[in-house]
Structure formats: structure tokens, C-alpha cells
């Protein structure tokens, strides 16, 4: 049972959240302008890394806000929680297990993922 630090509500059990798959896949602004291959890439292809994975979660049974999480796919350790629109780069907050005092920055409402 993961402990996920919702940027709005604080640390809560995984059962309160919904999973939204890999983060930072932006819907093409003009889908009709994409080739079949580009569109298939957007629809179906995911990186599926062994290691740090940036993914989307939603606090379904709480504030209903979507946000990003960086989780290690082998150990399930969560190394970052950051708002939608947060940068992929940026400083990683290295956190040992179960001490996820992750200080998520004030989420900017209305920013693109």
C-alpha cells in the first residue's frame, strides 16, 4: 500500500487515489496534423522503464486533483510529487522510504502537464 503525498491534502493511502499512467504525454494540439505513426505513438506507446517513472495520479476520494509522481518501478519508492505543469527536470527530492516529507511546490492551477 503506497503512501502518496497529495500536494493538496498531504500523505494518504494509495486506496484514495486513481492511477493515470505515464506523465508528460501531451495530447497533440492538432491531432489531424499527425501521421498514423505519430498518433499511434501517442495512443499506445509508453516507456515502461525499470527505475524512475513519472506518472499521473488523481486524488479520487479526496480533492479530485491530478498531479505527477515520480516512482521507482522496482522499489516503489516515491522520489518526487509535483503539480501538473511541473518541469520534468528540476531538483529531485531524494527521500528514504516512508519519510516522504516531499514539499510539493504550490501547484499552479491551469498549467499544462
Amino acid at each position, binding site marked *: 500500500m503506497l503512501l502518496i503525498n497529495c500536494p493538496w491534502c498531504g500523505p494518504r493511502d494509495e486506496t484514495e487515489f486513481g492511477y493515470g499512467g505515464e506523465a508528460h504525454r501531451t*495530447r497533440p494540439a492538432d491531432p489531424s496534423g499527425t501521421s498514423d505513426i505519430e498518433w499511434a505513438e501517442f495512443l499506445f506507446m509508453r516507456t515502461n522503464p525499470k527505475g524512475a517513472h513519472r506518472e499521473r495520479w488523481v486524488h479520487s476520494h479526496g480533492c479530485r486533483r*491530478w498531479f505527477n509522481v515520480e516512482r521507482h518501478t522496482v*522499489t516503489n519508492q516515491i522520489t518526487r510529487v509535483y503539480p*501538473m505543469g511541473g518541469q520534468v527536470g528540476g531538483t529531485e527530492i531524494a527521500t528514504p522510504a516512508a519519510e516522504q516529507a516531499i514539499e510539493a511546490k504550490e501547484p499552479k492551477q491551469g*498549467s499544462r502537464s
Partner: protein
Amino acid sequence: MTKDAFRGATGGRIDRSRPVTFTFNGRTYRGYQGDTLASALLANGVHLVGRSFKYHRPRGILSAGSEESNALIQLERGNRTEPNLRATQIEIHEGLAASSQNAWPSVETDVGSINNVLSKVFVAGFYYKTFMHPQSFWMKVYEPVIRRAAGLGKAPAEPDPDFYDKMHVHSDVLIVGSGPAGLMAALAAARTGARVILADEQNEFGGSLLGTREMIDGRPAADWVAAAVEELRAFPEVRLLPRTTVTGYYDHNYLILAERRTDHLPRGSAPKISRQRLWKVRAKQVVLATGSHERPLVFADNDRPGIMLAGAVRTYVNRFAALPGRRAVVLTNNDSAYAAALDMNDAGIEIAAIVDLRGHAGGPLAAEAKRRGFRVLTNTAITATHGSKRVTGVDVMMMNGPGEDVIGAPTRIDCDLVAMSGGWNPAVHLFSQSTGKLRYDDELSCFVPGVSVQAERSAGSCKGTFDLPACLAEGAATGAQAALAAGHGDGVAPAVPAATSVAPQPLRPLWIVPTTTPVGHGKAKHFVDFQNDVSAADVLLASREGYQSVEHLKRYTTTGMGTDQGKTSNVNALAILAKSLASPIPQVGTTTFRPPYTPTTYGVLAGRDVGELADAARVTPMHSWHVAHGAAFEDVGQWKRPWYFPKGDAQGTEDMHAAVRRECRAVRNGVGVLDASTLGKIDIQGPDAAQLLNRVYTNAFLKLDIGKCRYGVMCKEDGMVMDDGVTTRLGPNHFLMTTTTGNAAKVLEWLEDYIQTEWPDLRVFLTSVTEHWATASIAGPKAREVVAELAPDLDLSPEAFPYMSYREAVVAGVPARIFRISFTGELSYEINVPAQHGLHLWENIMRAGEKHGITPYGTETMHVLRAEKGYIIVGQETDATVTPQDLGMGWVVSKQKADFIGKRSYTRKDTARSDRKQLVGLLTDDPNEVLPEGTQLTAIADGHAPVPMLGHVTSSYFSDTLGRSIALALVSDGFNRMGQTIFAPLGGGKTVSCAVTKPVFYDPEGVRLHG
């Protein structure tokens, strides 16, 4: 009552003032408060407690703890019976009734032991090799017979009369195990003020100290334990949990503990206390001090009753004053058995010999053994054991240098007890569950914790630290560090009490003890896994047959797959495999330990979530009326929806078919009413509300007029139908969306996803209002008359209130929203009132409709009526591989809109092809034949397998309206098959032919709808 003849006159942690009588296999015995079932049986001279799993060999008690593989017990009878309990963990109480498992007619004379004679055929993989053909025999013949013969215990057939509960807690430091390391860690952490939980599976704290006679600070260790527990009790933030097994270690330091609260009391004697309690602990830091399990030695016929682990014998004599024998032979490859031998001797057991596999027995313990005059035989093996239901003696022989063969002639030594020690395995189960990586320690010949992944630390013998002073020091340091990491104290270990260190001599890892014939030849069996009857020969055979991965070996031989999870067998099996592969043990690897650590009752996992509380039930405001009027209910998601309303009279009650036909007739010819409150309702507001709808529905929504309703289909980006429903414009910036009952939450989450992540520029807000409104759908040619009576101020003429429009009005005295939409194909009004008026509305509808014969109908009638009209149900006609075009609903997909979710995918090669599975109607040639839903469809009536499948039946009913059966189906290239005949093979040689038609069977022009 028999006398407990094998009980020492003094000593032990039993309460001799409180004798306890209990029964085992129907016979009455005496023990004492503080005994386990195993210690009480041993004190009564009972060793034969069970028959083995496969060969039905007589088996005795092996261990003194939760690692027990042999002594599995069926406890109590009737609704409180419980299988597969370990005699070594059962605390006896007055009236306890225990019995053996897997023996018939009795454990003394067991018919199944014929398997032992036939053992040559029951080799590794026997089931896989033998019970292959015919395939259909597996389920019907082989498996039931095998299950009965190789049975473990029996599950109770009656409901559990006890209750269970759960606790959710947070702790700074959770300490697992209360031996010297765990207790010391608890003291260190508690003194910092940290919130500490100390859990131990035994009834008393102290762990290994309970079974030895160590001295701490110059006093018996038990005194130190008592003082430590007393100190811990005084801390307000410390929680002590005896009789509590930490069964699971999950992500982010989430651990599950099973506490047995009343199992040590006579059953049913504490009716107000939950029998067991599940603790769900989120710990900042965990200290594992789980101790270690002694390894058996793998020698010829090492499974006879009376052959026990040396450490266990030591525990029985010290802790319980129970004597497992009078004359013992000790077999060992390490020093710890010498300590056991000395304690056994002190308790009055004659040590006939210490058989040491090592070439030299040095060190202080061996010196003391020799001083006492024990016969110590080095470089010697036990090559045979005698006796059947109890060991009566052993043969010993010298070994050659490498320990692979024996020399000379055997010497027989008579004994009634063999105490063996093959070294110790740290109990790394929880560490392994925490996904930490194990490391093989060559010097100790065992796996120890390697790299940690979670916030845990190991201390004591579970880390490979076997020396008492070192365990205490490690516990102190670990407890202080864990507390510091959790934000308490300074991390400095407290002072450690004094204890004596005994520097152990190295052990000799000899994984198979040789005998006069090679392993697998002759009658002798070298057991590796006692519970699953796996011998060294089975492991070697599997290796020869190519099972070189330990995971494969495990499954093929079933080693370590019993209820004990191989606590005593895994390392031996692995080492034998490694030896046969000539690979180092770390290279062969080890299997992953999984929860639970020991078997856990379903009751404690379920807690209070049983019966009515098993799952939440959502009911509509009209539910009480439905119940009072005899509705049969259907579960739709968590909702209870009326399925049909059977009418009863003196002749009996209608069946579903009769009720549904009557309800359908009422809607088609008169008027019916459906409780539609469960439909998902999402209130959408904001200047960009229309824009959002325009992007998520396949059809246009920007220009929907206020007061108008529109049916919409939502697809995912891949173009496949996700949900459908009617959305109504209530105001310029205000819409009400309806979703299917089951998808309401999913649709809301999905819309939020787009608003928050893809289109954050949209100014729009969503609110779930599903439960705010109660909905009654009045349908049928006489619907208008009923509504007119309820809402006299509302103009219901088709011109004033046309199909697909919306009005607000007072209905039955309550402000209401009325939608003229239809899922039946009839004139229909959906009346929404605030939920608290739902029952009032419903009762008034029934009253107003009475003279028109208004008939309440349920979901089954709704399904039939909509199928007659060819209306789809998402999740029934669709399965996430179906586009709107596949459903013949191209009309709902806008050609004008530049973009909407799913649009791009309609030009993908696969979605654009014309021969996809498409929705069609099916009319069986025999009008009375109702095809089962899910029936596969073929183009030819009788072909040889494999016959290509065209698709399947998605909906199928008997239509009273049409007087015949109807079906909807997804069929490859279905639109081009109109008028063709296709076939539904139903099995058993029956094939039904049917005509492919359009999916609309009734009123295709929609005349009735618009009426």
C-alpha cells in the same frame, strides 16, 4: 487420564498449580497452563501426531515454533473447527479438542501408508507425469481423489460464530520479535519517547531466551526479560502486542499484524472480545528481530517421530520441563547442538552419543560435553534410523574425507530421541517481503539481509548474529538508530547488560549426510521438505530432468510450497540443487518469500466486513417502496436496482419471464414507471462548459439550445466508445450530463483529467449530483395523462414540450426537472426531484397512474424494451473495441468539428476498415429460440474445428411485443450481411440458424417516441 510421565519434576515456565485437560485424537491428556499442545503431548510421551502428505509416513513434532512442518492439527469441531494449525503454537486450555490430519481411519493405522510402499512411483513431478490424459479427467476424477488422499485439514462447513476486527495505526518504530535483540531495540527506542509497537508471535515476550538458560547481568535471562517488559509497559507511547504475528510487509512500510486475542481461551468463553484482530500499521521505521530457524539435517530416514531439531528439544526441556525422550543421540554440524545436549542432560536425558559431522569438535561447549563423559563421534554420520512410529535407534558410520561416503561397518546406538542441528537460517521472510535483497553468507552458510529497500533494519539472529552479547548490542544500536530516523532521541545506543559470549566453531555445510547406498537407491529417504514429502532424491531427479532454476524446482517438486512456506526446507533444497549443478549457492539464488508469514484466518482479514457490511449497498430514495412491493433486485455497480416486480396471488408468484412480459405490455400499451435515480448525473457549469462538451462528445454541443436535450457518445482517444448519455442545457453556462449507472465515477474522473491537464484554459467546473436527485421515468402511450395530473400547470402538448426537451415545473407539489427523453421508444418523461422528495414523487405517480394501470418495471424490462428499439447499453454491446460507426451510429459522429476526443483515430487503418465487427440484429429461424448471450456465431452450420468465429451475441431476449425472440450481435462485416443466414452453435450438436437484420425491431420510424 494418562499421567504426564515425561515431565520434569521442577522447572519450566508452566504453571503447575493450573493443570489443564485436553483431548488429542479422542484421548484425554493432562498438561499445564503455559504448555503448547506440542509440549503437553511430548510430556505425555506422544510423538506420533500426523501422517505425511504424500507417503502417509508417521510423523512427529519437529520444532518448537511457527516453522513446524509436521505437527499440523485440526482444532475443535463444528463451526469453530480450524485446520492446519501448528501444535507448537497452540496454547492449551481446559477442554481443548485437537486431532491429527491426513490419516484414515486413524493416525496409528493409516490406510494411506500404502503410498510409502509404492513410493518409487511417487517421484518428483509425479502428478504432472501421470495424470495427463484424458484432460477432462483432471477436474472430475484425478484432482478430487488426490485432494482427499493428500489432504491437509478440513475447512469448517458452517458460518464462523466469532467476530474479528481491525485497527489502523501509525508508529514511529515497529519492532518485530521480542528476543534479546528485539527487546533491547524496544527499550532503546522507547526511552527516546518514540511511539513504539513491539509485536511477538508467542504468548510471552523473550523469544529464544524463553527456551535457553542464558544469564543476563548475572541473573537468569527471564528476570531480565520481565524487567524489560515492565519498563516498556510504563511508557505511554509503547504498545505491546503478544500473540501477534507480523504476517505481511508491504510498500512504504505498511505492515499487517494478526493478533490472536482469545485463541488461548476455551472457545466461546469470551464472547465480547473479538477473536482475532488485524493491525494495519504504517511505521516510520521497522526493526526486524525475527530470530532464526534451525535447519534439519538431510540424512537417511530423518523423518521418524522422535527425530527433532536440537534447539527445539532444548526449548522443550527448559521452557516446558517436557522430556522428548529418555536417551538421545545428537547429530550436528555445528556447536549449537552441544549447548542443547548439555541442557538435555541437565534435564535428565541420557546423551547416548553426539554424532558430529565435523572432523574436530573444539571449543568450550564440546570440552564440557567431553568432560561430562558424552560419547562424541566426529567425522561420523547417521546412516540409518530404526523404528516406525517412534525412533528406536540409529546406525552410525565414519565418513570419508569429503563427507560423500561412509567407511567400515555400521554401529547401532539405541535411543528414543534424535536431536539434529544443521545450522541456523535467519528468519529473513519479512526482510524479503520488504523487497530487500538477500546475501548468502559463506561462513555462516545461510542467507542474511543484504541491501535494504525500505526503512527497516535487522538485528540479532535474523541478521546472522547468533552470539547473545552481540544480539543485545545490535538491538540497542538498531533501536536507537531507528528512533532517531523517526525523529526521536540522539541515536546513541543505551548501555547493554552483560552476557556471556561463546565463540562458536565453524559449522560444516554437509547438505546430504551419506549412507551405505547413494541417495535415491535403496529404501531410505532423505527428507528435505517434511510437510510436502520431498526428498533429496526428488531434488536430484528434478535437477537431472533439467529443472535448474530454483523457481522451477520449487514448483516441480513442491519443495517449500506447503503451509510452512519451506521455513525448514528451502535452504537445504537450494543447497542440494546447487551441489548437483556444481554452482555456488548464491548463483542458484533463493525464492522470494511472500505474505503471510504463517497461515492467517480469512476471518481476521475480513474483520467486520462480512454479511451486510461486506460491501456498501447504494439505494435510491424509493428503495423502501420497491422492497414493500416485492421487487427482485439486481446489483448494478454498488446500486440495488429493482430487476422486476413479480406479482403474486393465491396460485403463486410470477417468474421473471412472466413479470417481464407483463411489464413490457404495460409500457407498450399503457404506462409504466422505472426508478432511474441511479443514472450518473454531472452538473457542468462555467463559460466554457459547452466547449468542454463539444470536445468530449463525438457530436456537436456548442449550439444546443437552452431547454434542449441531446444524446451523446463519449469515446476515448483511440476512438472506442466509453460511455453514452443525454446532456441537457439548463442555462447559457449550465449543463446537466447523465452517464450510465456504472460509469458515473469513471466519467467524472476522466473529464477532470482533461480539464486539469490537457485543457486547463477551459473555465468549467464539474460536480457530481447523482445522489442529489431522484428520478422516475414514466413511459408509455398514457404517460402524458399521468404527468398532466401531477403537473397541472405544465403544457404537455407536443408543440409546447417536444421530444428531447426540458422543462421545470411543480410536480406533485415539488419543484421538478422534467426531461422528455426515452429509452423505451415510447412517449416518456423523466421526472427529477430533489432526493428527499423521491419517495413522495413515486407514491404520487403510482396514485395518479392507478386508473391507467400504471405498472412499475425494473431493469430487465428496460433492457428488453431498449433492445426492441436497438438502443445500445455501454458495456453490453461495447467492450472498448467498438467504435460508434461499428454500432451503426455514424450519425452521432460529427463531420464538421475540427477535433474531439477520438476523432483522429477514425482514420487509423484498423478503425477505418469496413469489415470490423458491427452491430446487427439477429432473428432466429425458430421464433421461440432465445440465444444465450455470449453465443459465438459462425458462417457455416457444421464445419470441422477450427471454425472461424464471426462474432458473438451481445443481447438476447424474448420480446412480448413482437411475439418472438430478438437478439443483438457484433458480427464481422455485419452491415454487408443483412438478410444472410448465420449460425449459432450451442454445443451438444445443436446449431441455431438466424437471419441478420437491422438492429431496430420496433417502430423504426420513431412515431411513438415523438407522439
